């Protein structure tokens, strides 16, 4: 087994708030790990530390080590930009770039960096869209505005956009929470397929979703890691009382 991502005693502060407390988890390669917990438990905060999105907020402070392939992404001299290329992220609400076409959205990661060969771009667009099972739906209108897609299609487009830059890890922050049930199902199937190639970490407050899509589950409460392990085990025989209370719906 290969641990793609490794959190080692991670603490995250926002100003005076201690949002994530001493969390250590391993994320095995080519697996889906769900982070669950009641809202405000720090799960999104934890997720966003894995591709250094907190760098944007001067008040945020990340302590501890976060290793991707064994090297600390917060080491001095490590460029957050290159980390974000390796660790992609899909957000809660689909956020395609408005007034960019579907095509341009997929290669936005290259386009915004300003260099792209046309034939190469075509390839990337097709592969990425096929991988998210959107190709058949949009191949005849690649040049139309991305905002014309439905919410579920937009989210799959955003996933295509993320995998187009060839990441190794994909972080998903409640990727289906803004979608209807059918679109949600499609996203979940997609996650199942994507794990063949990528290491996926997904934050969700929907326990059924965690149970359906993930191989491993970590339960976070009040910024602390209560329990983690194989999803089957967490949902059937949790070791901690709090976990049991949460998954049986007794709080949160």
């Amino acid at each position, binding site marked *: 087994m290969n641990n793609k991502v490794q959190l080692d005693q991670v603490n995250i502060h926002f100003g005076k708030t201690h949002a994530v407390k001493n969390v250590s988890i391993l994320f095995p390669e080519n697996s889906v790990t769900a982070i669950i917990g009641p809202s405000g438990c720090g799960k999104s905060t934890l997720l966003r530390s894995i591709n250094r999105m907190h760098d944007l907020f001067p008040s945020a402070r990340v302590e501890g080590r976060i290793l991707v392939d064994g090297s600390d992404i917060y080491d001095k001299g490590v460029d957050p930009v290159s980390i974000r290329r390796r660790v992609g992220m899909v957000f809660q609400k689909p956020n395609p770039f408005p007034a960019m076409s579907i095509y341009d959205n997929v290669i936005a990661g290259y386009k915004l960096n300003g260099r792209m060969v046309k034939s190469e771009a075509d390839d990337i667009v097709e592969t990425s869209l096929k991988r998210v099972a959107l190709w058949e739906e949009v191949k005849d209108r690649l040049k139309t505005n991305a905002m014309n897609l439905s919410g579920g299609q937009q989210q799959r487009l*955003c996933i295509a956009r993320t995998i187009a830059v060839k990441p190794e890890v994909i972080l998903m922050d409640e990727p289906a929470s803004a979608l209807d049930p059918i679109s949600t199902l499609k996203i979940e199937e997609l996650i199942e397929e994507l794990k063949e190639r990528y290491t996926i970490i997904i934050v969700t407050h929907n326990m059924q979703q965690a149970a359906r899509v993930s191989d491993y589950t970590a339960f976070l409460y009040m910024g602390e890691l209560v329990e983690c392990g194989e999803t089957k085990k967490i949902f059937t025989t949790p070791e901690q009382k709090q976990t049991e209370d949460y998954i049986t719906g007794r709080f949160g």
Partner: protein
Amino acid sequence: MMRSVAWRNTKNHLMTALMLAATAAVLFPLLLIFVHIVKMGIDSLSVDFFTQIPKPTGEQGGGMANGMLGSLIMIGAASLVGLPIGIFGAIYLTEYGGSRMSAAIRFAADVLSGTPSIITGLVAYSLLVVPMKGFSAMAGAAALGMIMVPIVLRTTEEQLKMVPGTLREASLALGVPLWRTSLKVTLRSATSGVLTGILLAIARVAGETAPLLFTALGNQFWGKSLFAPMAAIPLQIFTFAISPYEDWHRLAWAGALVLVVVMFTLSLTARYFGRQKYRI
């Protein structure tokens, strides 16, 4: 103490009428002035106005072609300096802001935009006219540029703040560096809003007279270079308005109409862009 409902309603109507009267009193002189400018301006406008330079005192006719060109040149030069400072300053406030320093910068910009424009003229005089030993269009442009900076900075910042954070995040999460994200996503999304700010700033300085009085000075002829005195429409309106000659008064009215039309066009265009949503 309970007053009767009838009295309260009467009072309500009375005060409503009073507020209406105040509004009328506010609008009336403004509209009066506007109508007068339009009427006098149309009477006085001619083709010559746009093609000729002012005739010497006593001769009939002439126009303000040199002033129009001068205004364009100085506004252009002022924009070259003022716009980048304002726009990049605004990017600083949105990307790295939040500190006490950016609050100070915001405050300085607001305070600066309320400073009498004649002061910027004095400053440009002491910084450029004195060392260069002569009045110049460049000094005029510098004074105008100083006026533009705070306007552009504040409007651009407002616009950048309205760009949804999710777009920035999407770009950053794709591994696009912050600077490219700022320019290609945030700033581009706010293009129309930023354009609004630029147009408003240009509209503002297009009518400025006081800062040019002892920088560009004005010129009865075509300006020779950026290093020589130069005419500008507002300066010409001033000179002609306080002169005793009927014919010059006519030119002043014509100039006023042209200036008002230009400014209204700029303002309305700005409003139009201001209403558009963010785009990329």
